[in-house]
């Protein structure tokens, strides 16, 4: 069964993991099934209930990936099975009497609801990372993308991961190393090595969980989960002492004390056992530690164990929010807008307007004072009316032309929740073992002091070679023809021929 993570195909299908995307960073992972394993008792079979409505799996299966799916009318109140509400007890019994539906029966067709929808998308390590059930601290996309890139994890690589944790790195690593599913009938040829991830976890329950997820996600054979204390027992597969070597090209250690595990990651283990590293390639290593003290100890141990190109970095990542910032007096009663003069001109105009108004008011008061000593209460009323009329007049032509989504100025800023520190990443490389014999053999193959003084010219392109060949052939043919016609006459070499000859000599 292909994994939806790697080869999702075009449609969702039964018993596959699918993600129900509600909104950004909020997707519900679910394995599509017609019948509910927990037997929640929906008539529509297995149903996913979200804040945007209920979605029977029958409406999610066999759909094109990326489809927008409408919610269905699902009676969540009167279902069988684990009816929690007491008031439903009586109803439930009644239902049982009427409806003697057996679990084998096909689920009822869903009825579309009036509102609510979600998007059905196939899982990717990125979406899985934001929606997976947390067991430990998760390695997020900005970190693992950089780690896998620096570890040179490419199709066909074998990756060791210690501390499977919540499995986010596992999924990203298997995607990076994947270059085909293992098949039983075709033995892996010598030329082609299939990429895989060997995951080690010392917490038994977590290891079991990861194993179960790997199975559900169709990654069996691509990820091998081992329950192991790697500090003590190292990284061989199956049995810690006599097991087979994973022949790893890249190693990721997300452990509290990575330096304790490093003694097993050497070319020639001190106990004489097999090395878990690939003997024919350089091995890349990354450790993931939140504290500087851990980093210092790790690097010190790496130096003692002859790792090279040791470097340490931290990744600073932030997401950027883009908004239209609306500032101006015309945005009165617009949500999210700042009612404030947008520029000096507007401020002055506004002030001028207010001043004008108060001047008029004062004049009116003076007049009133002059005419009568008692002011009329109604005379103060028209003031707000007068104030608003010219302003709306001024602003309506501006805003009404521009649709609301184009109003204001486009601005960007970092999103509110910022991860300022995740962990320090230590990278190192262990080159291939190189012995004196290897060096000797290489010297025989490649004479160490042979340097041709005549530097070869820039190699000719394929097309040029072809053209030259063609020219030569044509020349020969021409020559032959001419010789046939006039066998006595000796032909002078043509310039093209000369060129071809020169090329041959070069």
């Amino acid at each position, binding site marked *: 069964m292909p994994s939806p993570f790697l080869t999702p195909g*075009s449609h969702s299908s039964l018993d596959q993991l699918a993600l129900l995307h509600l909104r950004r960073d909020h997707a519900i992972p679910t394995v599509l099934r017609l019948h509910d394993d927990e037997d929640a008792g929906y*008539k529509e079979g297995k149903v996913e209930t979200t804040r945007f409505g209920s979605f029977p799996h029958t409406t999610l299966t066999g759909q094109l990936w990326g489809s927008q*799916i409408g919610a269905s009318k699902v009676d969540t109140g009167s279902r069988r099975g684990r009816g929690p509400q007491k008031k439903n007890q009586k109803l439930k019994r009644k239902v049982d009497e009427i409806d003697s539906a057996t679990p084998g029966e096909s689920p009822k067709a869903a009825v579309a609801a009036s509102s609510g929808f979600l998007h059905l998308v196939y899982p990717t390590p990125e979406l899985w990372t934001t929606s997976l059930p947390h067991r430990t601290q998760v390695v997020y996309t900005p970190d693992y993308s950089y780690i896998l890139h620096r570890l040179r994890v490419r199709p066909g690589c074998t990756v060791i991961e210690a501390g499977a944790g919540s499995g986010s790195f596992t999924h990203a690593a298997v995607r990076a190393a994947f270059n085909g599913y293992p098949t039983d009938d075709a033995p892996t040829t010598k*030329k082609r090595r299939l990429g895989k991830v060997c995951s080690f976890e010392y917490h038994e329950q977590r290891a079991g969980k990861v194993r179960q997820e790997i199975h559900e996600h169709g990654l069996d054979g691509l990820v091998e989960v081992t329950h192991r204390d790697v500090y003590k027992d190292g990284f061989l597969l199956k049995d810690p002492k006599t097991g087979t070597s994973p022949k790893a090209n890249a190693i990721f250690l997300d452990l509290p004390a990575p330096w304790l595990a490093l003694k097993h990651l050497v070319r020639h283990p001190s106990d004489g056992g097999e090395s878990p590293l690939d003997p024919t*390639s350089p091995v890349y290593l990354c450790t993931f530690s939140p504290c500087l003290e851990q980093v210092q100890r790790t690097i010190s141990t790496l130096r003692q164990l002859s790792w090279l190109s040791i470097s340490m970095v931290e990744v600073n990542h932030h997401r950027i929010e883009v908004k239209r910032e609306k500032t101006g007096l015309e945005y009165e009663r617009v949500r999210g807008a700042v009612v404030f003069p947008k520029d000096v001109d507007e401020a002055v105009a506004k002030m001028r307007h207010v001043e004008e108004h108060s001047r008029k008011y004062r004049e009116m008061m003076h007049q009133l004072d002059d005419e009568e000593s008692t002011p009329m209460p109604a005379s103060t009323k028209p003031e707000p009316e007068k104030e608003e009329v010219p302003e709306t007049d001024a602003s309506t032509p501006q805003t009404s032309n521009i649709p609301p989504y184009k109003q204001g100025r486009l601005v960007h800023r970092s999103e509110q929740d910022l991860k300022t520190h995740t962990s320090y990443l230590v990278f190192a490389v262990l080159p291939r073992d190189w012995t004196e014999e290897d060096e000797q053999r290489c010297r025989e193959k490649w004479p160490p002091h042979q340097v041709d003084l005549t530097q070869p010219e820039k190699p000719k392109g394929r097309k040029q070679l072809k053209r030259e060949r063609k020219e030569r052939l044509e020349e020969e043919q021409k020559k032959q023809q001419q010789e046939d016609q006039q066998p006595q006459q000796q032909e002078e070499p043509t310039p093209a021929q000369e060129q071809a000859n020169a090329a041959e000599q070069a």
Partner: protein
Amino acid sequence: MHSYVRPNQFVAFRLPSEATRIQKVVPNTSISLGKYGTFPANQIIGRPFYLTFEIHETPGEADSTYLRIVSAAELHAESLITEGEGDGDDVELNEDGTPVRSNRETIDDRSTQKLTLEEILALKKESTGAGKDIIAKLLESHQALDQKTAFSLAKYKLRKEKKYMKRFTVIPLDVSLLANYMLEDKDAARTMELRDELIGLIGCWGNVHHGGSTSFDETVTERPNGRYLVVDDTGGLVIAALAERMGILYPHDGDYDEEQQDAIERPAVAEGDEAEKPQDGEGQSSDTPRRPRRPHMSASGNTITLLHANKQPNLSLLKYFGYDQDSPSESHPLYTNLKTVSFMQLLDPNADNIYAEEPPVVPEEELATYKPSKRSSYHRKRGRWMRVRKVVDDARSGGFDGLVIASLMNPSSIMKHAVPLVAGSGPVVIYSPTVEPLTEVMDLYSTARKNAYIARKRELQERKEQQPEDQNEEGAKTYPELEEEFTLDPTMLLAPTLQTSRVRAWQVLPGRTHPLMSGRGGAEGYIFHGIRVLPTQEIIEAAGNPGRKRRKIAKPTETETPTASGIDIEMTS
């Protein structure tokens, strides 16, 4: 996998000055590293990567150059010693608590170095120990050396080492290294200042990976896996990054499980191949090729389709990976798996002469009478036409697994045509060195615009339904007014996100751990990401989070429904 230096391969040399130099390792030539020395290429061919070599030579003696492998212990010697002494962490103190040495007395001029420039130059000339004796001499003759603190001494030694050590490290040339090289040592603008960490992010958000082995594909899925659509104006760096993730970048991709023996044997074979080619060109076609001849751009799955603005794409950086754009080697995986389509071919294929003008088919009998040259030219033209036809039609039919854009052009103009070609749930990723183009893209997919689009579309739909159905046939789904107002369909992308990432490098030395003091400024680099979705044609209201209030209002109606649901049950059973 990069297990040893292959002949005629490009490799990188890391020099003591931290600079990187990229050179092709051609057998039987000498490689010059400028002031750090010259050595014969044969002395590194077949050797593993990441080893550090020291150039040793006896002055005035020919063929005396030899490379010594510097062991890891030697490279780390200084750090290991300070750690071993255990005084790396704390500063030596006097009895009164002040540091024994401080920089208070340091003299900041050149008078402390007693060796003159001439003397140093003379030393360099007769130096034999790969520069180590020069450094020793310099340290010896530095008057105020004992006044230096441990830190400044280490710094001084490092500075001198960088200047005089004849050392280099051989590093495999891969995308990560090339990106840093272009950024630090070359013209960063050529690669749109694309940084390494963003290449990782592009690959991950683009969900770029190997499409799986073909034999398995055929049995399971009907459509080929792993087809990616790319717009790349970084000279091929993005293509290289994606190809690396898909396992089609390196000429030897696919040759994996090599034994140590094999690794030693191989160079001769590889050299034979390479050496033969330029010398006897005619041997190429007559030799029976190892694998069946694969036509250019013929792969169905695990492919990259490159959209380019000009007649020819710029893929100059791919030469470092053995893929020469002008005369690609047929054995390179990109030969079959990289397809190129120009924007004009995509939008208006009939404007393209090659696509539009089919070379007339010549019957076999007539073909037999042709001269060989004319016959081959006929086959070439025919093949080219069929290739262009197939590649362009494939691209136009869409269904790509992802879209990656790193372009100098306005992103929205590309998205207008490229996003609809992505299959549902496929990712769309755009890189830009500056944030402004991407904020505009974000704005094109803003919630406000999306809502306005949906409302306007519904309005037009209803108006159309009211109208008599005379020209409904052709214009059933297109609304010119809608396209005029909204340049692209905002409902096509889900969860648009804009992000940036930057790594900060640290120095970790015993007792001297801190972030690096200086780095490279320039473009920050931003990534836009969204998921292509297929909006339904029906009208669906969004059901927001129903507030408490509404639920309370809904309650009384719900109490009335049980009878209704009872009917439902009766109907089904």
